[in-house]
């Protein structure tokens, strides 16, 4: 249960402003792909177009195609809600639902959609998802407690558990560790390595070491200047990007000369 993503000639606009220009990229199933680049280069914006979350912002729209195993996300007949059921997302700051317990947070995707689920199935799903997020042992005795009582790193893993509980094909992560301490970050990075076995993972990160540690392939985005659109500069195996990049600007960025 994992799908590949092919993006063709994608432009992203905020109203009339062109935020990301002409992206072509193919992301393999069961791999970890990292998006790196300086702030404001459009990597998060682009990430959000992969599950149509950018549409939450009024005026945002795209041109081009994003194919999920060949099916265009932007086909007029496609309901964005269906897309998001298949392409899950984890956000920068952990955001468990404050009104729900740990258990209910994991089941949120199922319950909020009013799907009926038997108690034993729900228990099984909760355990499976929390184990998948490496959180089960830490919370199994307090599933009824509020999710907001966990530590930041635990909350983020709870959010990952919540995302995988709806069994998506792809998991998008928008700087999932930027609000976490190093120990929690390590736990999330370990988890990403394990998730690769079942899911296609796309992660936006500011931390180049993190990209080098967790990803198979890396995409470098850059922006020519303020008010200019962000572009995909180079996309290759992570080792290539960090050791022998083709583009000068990629080399400058990964070697810390700017950004």
């Amino acid at each position, binding site marked *: 249960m994992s799908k590949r993503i092919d993006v063709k000639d994608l432009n992203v606009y905020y109203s009339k402003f062109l935020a990301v220009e002409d992206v072509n990229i193919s992301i393999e199933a069961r791999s970890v792909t990292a998006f790196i680049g300086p702030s404001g280069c459009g990597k998060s914006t682009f990430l959000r177009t992969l599950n149509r979350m950018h549409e939450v912002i009024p005026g945002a729209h795209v041109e081009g195609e994003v194919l999920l195993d060949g099916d265009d996300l932007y086909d007029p007949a496609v309901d964005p809600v269906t897309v998001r059921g298949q392409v899950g997302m984890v956000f920068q700051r952990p955001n468990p639902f404050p009104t729900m317990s740990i258990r209910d947070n994991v089941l949120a995707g199922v319950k*909020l959609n009013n799907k009926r689920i038997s108690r034993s199935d729900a228990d099984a799903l909760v355990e499976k998802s929390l184990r998948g997020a490496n959180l089960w042992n830490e919370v199994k005795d307090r599933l009824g407690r509020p999710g907001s009582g966990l530590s930041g790193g635990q909350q983020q893993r709870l959010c990952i558990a919540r995302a995988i509980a709806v069994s998506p094909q792809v998991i998008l992560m928008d700087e999932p560790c930027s609000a976490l301490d190093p120990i929690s970050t390590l736990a999330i990075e370990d988890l990403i390595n394990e998730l690769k076995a079942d899911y296609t993972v796309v992660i936006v990160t500011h931390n180049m070491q993190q990209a080098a540690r967790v990803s198979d392939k890396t995409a470098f985005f850059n922006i020519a200047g303020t008010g200019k659109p962000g572009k995909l500069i180079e996309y290759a195996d992570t080792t290539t990007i960090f050791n022998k990049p083709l583009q000068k600007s990629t080399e400058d960025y990964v070697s810390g000369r700017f950004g």
Partner: protein
Amino acid sequence: MSSALLKTRRSQLTKGRLPGYAIWVVLGTAVVLAAAVSALIGFDVLVWALIAAVFFVAGATLVTAAAEGRRKAADSLMTYLVYGAFVIALLPLLSVIWTVLERGLPGLSYDFFFTSMNGVTGATDNASAENGTPVLGGAYHAIVGTLQITLWATLVSVPIGLLAAVYLVEYGRGGALDRAITFFVDVMTGIPSIVAGLFAAALFALLFGPGTRTGFVASVALSVLMIPVVVRSTEEMLKIVPNELREASYALGVRKWRTIVKVVVPTAISGIASGVTLAIARVVGETAPILVTAGFASSINLNVFGGWMSTLPTFIYYQILTPTSPTNIDASTQRAWAAALILIIMVMLLNVVARLVARIFAPRTSR
């Protein structure tokens, strides 16, 4: 040796400041002088306090001006005025509460709560005054009327207010319509309550013929007053729900309306409930709209859709303005203050409940 010298030398930083006791000297002098003056023009505690306050502020300012300069004097004058303003603002509050307690408590009894004014006439009041028996008649019908009219007003305005707020926060994109709704909701908060009453009266007069007065007409009038309060408070509460929660829900493939109903509203529910309670507290004491829409009744009417109805505020109003017995108005006055006490207790309870709801049911966040 030098330390002994230092002890006697005053700090450069405190030089030229009034010693702490100076202000108390001024206060004492002012009180004594004021007593003398008020004795001259006829003694009265209030007059005495007033004159003493004036003397104290003037004296203290002058003393400060002499010792510490004009800037300091202006500063301390302002301090006295600001403190004085607060004391003056508290006077009516204390006076009102004291009056209501003092005059309302004697009239409170089981019978007052559970009998109506049905059959209570001027003769009844005259008889109880002559024989020294307890005052008969009570506010049962008015309490029942208040509860019914308020309940219906809540039932009408909460769904409308909630949905309108949801529209403004969750669906509105700042277009002309949204701005118009926001603006007119603000304007609506300023509609005089009597105009809201006239509106409901005029509306029902056109629909069901002139002189249509029922509890429900009053509920509609109160709704006009309640809706903007509900909208505003709900709006505020929905706005502080973090966007991250909405996004988290959307990212799980949850539809917008389910996100609103199951995530956004539950997160804000304590604030919303508290806002609704405050809105109820605001309208429960309204008098003018009831006067022009529900008429006046002296017996229990359980049907909000037919017949005139009394509420506590209109009961108070009529008991004061048109006493049941024109020759023995004390009975009516007593009933009015007892009803006022009940009304104030109701409003205060609603306020307390609103605060408790906001505090207790607030979603616990670790951040």
